[in-house]
């Protein structure tokens, strides 16, 4: 039931920095520091081999050990985290920008434009996302370009659909009509009325898309259709090290744990309060 005396009740500022967000941001901060500072502390090439140190355990020479070719795990993990996060960020930005803009356009204009965009998004949605990536990868295997393009092509649809539906809901409200009557243009309404209202849901959606992208890149690299060795990619590292699981189980787990922490950090940082 609504409280008719709402104006009497003092406003409790809903804290933006909830405990879960704080934990997520801290986790992402630690991971970012590791990814950026790791290579500086140990200035080694991630592909530099030292077969004498093959599968070395954690120690003074190799802080996190070395893999089967004697390459520093620390440096490879740091580069892997950079690669995963950077690629995911680029992919999601590429998907979000057209997705949000087209969604706003469809919600604003409606009519045939909305129908054409809906049809295009439905057709793309009917294609399994990974299949699309695989088709594109067939043209240039082992490179970043098709991987990025394929993922962006599947991810923009969610942004488009969510933006269209939520923006249409905002645009139906009386305050938008009032703003139009007051002489404000389309740009102001979309920028200052619609975007701030739908921003929280888009941020959550971006975190999900980032997680999807990170996992998709790792998965595709793990099945050897994404990025190829010796590129230090987290998924590929798991597969490379898997034969040595008996001797060095921690080495196999480390890239997996890093992927898990990246995704967890993203989800926690963008988690919104349950109302």
């Amino acid at each position, binding site marked *: 039931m609504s409280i*008719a*005396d709402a104006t*009497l*009740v003092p406003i409790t500022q809903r804290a933006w920095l909830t405990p879960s967000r704080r934990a997520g941001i801290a986790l992402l901060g630690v991971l970012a520091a590791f990814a950026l500072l790791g290579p500086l502390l140990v200035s080694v090439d991630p592909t530099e081999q030292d077969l004498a140190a093959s599968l070395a355990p954690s120690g003074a020479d190799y802080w996190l050990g070395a893999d089967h070719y004697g390459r520093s795990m620390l440096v490879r993990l740091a580069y892997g985290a950079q690669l995963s996060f950077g690629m995911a960020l680029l992919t999601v930005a590429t998907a979000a920008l057209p997705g949000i803009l087209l969604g706003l356009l469809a919600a604003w204009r409606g009519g045939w434009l909305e129908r054409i965009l809906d049809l295009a998004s439905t057709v793309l949605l009917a294609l399994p996302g990974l299949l699309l990536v695989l088709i594109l990868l067939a043209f240039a295997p082992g490179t970043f370009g098709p991987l990025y393009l394929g993922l962006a092509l599947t991810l923009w649809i969610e942004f488009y659909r969510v933006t269209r539906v939520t923006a249409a809901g905002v645009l139906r409200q*009386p305050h938008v009509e009032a703003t139009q*009557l*007051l*002489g404000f243009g389309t740009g102001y309404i979309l920028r200052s*009325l619609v975007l701030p209202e739908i921003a929280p849901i888009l941020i959550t959606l971006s975190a999900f898309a980032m997680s999807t992208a990170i996992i998709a890149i790792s998965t595709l690299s793990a099945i050897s259709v994404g990025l190829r060795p010796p590129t230090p990619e987290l998924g590929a590292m798991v597969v490379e090290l898997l034969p040595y699981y008996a001797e060095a189980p921690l080495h196999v787990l480390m890239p997996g744990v890093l992927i898990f922490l990246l995704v967890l950090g993203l989800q926690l940082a963008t988690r919104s309060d349950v109302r």
Partner: protein
Amino acid sequence: MNAPVRFQSLTVSDLAISAGETTIVRDVAFTLAQGRPVTLLGASGSGKSLVAHAIMGSLPTGLSARGAITLDGEDLLAGSPAQIRARWGRTIAILPQEPWLALDPTMRIAGQVGEVHQYLHGLGSADTTTRMRSDLAEVGLGDRAQAYPHELSGGMCQRAAIAVTHAAGASLLIADEPTKGLDAALRDGVVTRLRQEVEQGRLLLTITHDIAVAGALGGMVGVMHDGALVEFGPAEQVLEAPRHDYARALIAADPAKWPSFPLPAAGEAVVSARGLAKRFGERALFEGLDVSVRRGEIVAIVGPSGCGKTTVGNILLGLVAPDHGAVERAAGLAPTRFQKLYQDPPAAFAPHQTVRQSLGDLLKLHGLDWARAEASMARFGLGRELLDRRPNEVSGGELQRFAILRALLLDPVFLFADEATSRLDPVSQKDVFAILIEAVRERGLSLLMVTHETALAEMVARRILTLGSPENP
């Protein structure tokens, strides 16, 4: 099932409600006895709803109540949350405002009353049916048991909600704005129903800003202002000879008691429409309707809810296209000189923008000076501290004055006020109309107002257009 318990009295003494350190409601004391219903009058933001929540034990988190509330010797403020919850529905029931939103839209009325007997009292299906029938017959809905809420009128929904509380057996009823959004005829029906509840021995506490409702219910009337009960006494005494200043202002704000005011002769037509027709689906709202509003004129459109009053105004503003007919505006007027006021003031402002932001953006867009806005704010009695609040933190009356201020900054020639004061208390309503009438007189503004309150239309408007749809009684 046991015969329902009939309580003798509810006593509230020294009730204070505080949020942390700040006391927001204080010095509330009254006694509600059988046959003497209590009606609390006051603006939204006066604390009257919080009193009801304190009695229910459903104050929002962060608020705490002190003092004593006793129902036949039982202290309602004491007790565990589980004990308080156990009273809900069984002992105390709240009649929701806008009951058509509180009923389950996917369930027939019979089921909604029946489930109370079945699950709350644990009756078998045969008993449930018998009792459900008698509950519905009691409120005059015996023949509509199989109807869904959307098939019932607002008044019928209100009665269905009452039947649900009867089924639960609650003997203390709290009616929170029971007539909100109802037109005069339906309002009288609801008031009659509430009187019958009192005659059957139930205790009734009504919260309203409608003085007519308080008068019709009789019993005791309390007036709340700024979180305090400033006046309490028998209805006749409070409504006829109020002692407190605010109570006097409130009683004097009844439209029927407004002083009449002169208006200069109306000028040329600002907007006119001929042969308007509009249908929604199968239902024709109106056909062959001619409307014109002239400069410096106040025109009211009245009629029952759902008859298309608002649609006429929206067609004149160009927000809705008519099926037939044409709208003609006087030549040489900028589109922004045609403005609208909305029924629900917070809905007309962007929820995440402070008043300062939205006003600032408007001034910047039209190259206007803050000084002009500040001058109007001073004139409309709007304090500067309101600027940094969001729309839902400003009272309805103040926000509606901001909406008028915003519209008047653009020097409008035509203003469409769509039930602009129906959600405001009488004092705010009077303030809003004082500002609007002044604008009509000084600037030659044309005001088209839609209202379901005939008394208000007769008091303010120079011409009244009555829309009626026989298909929607």
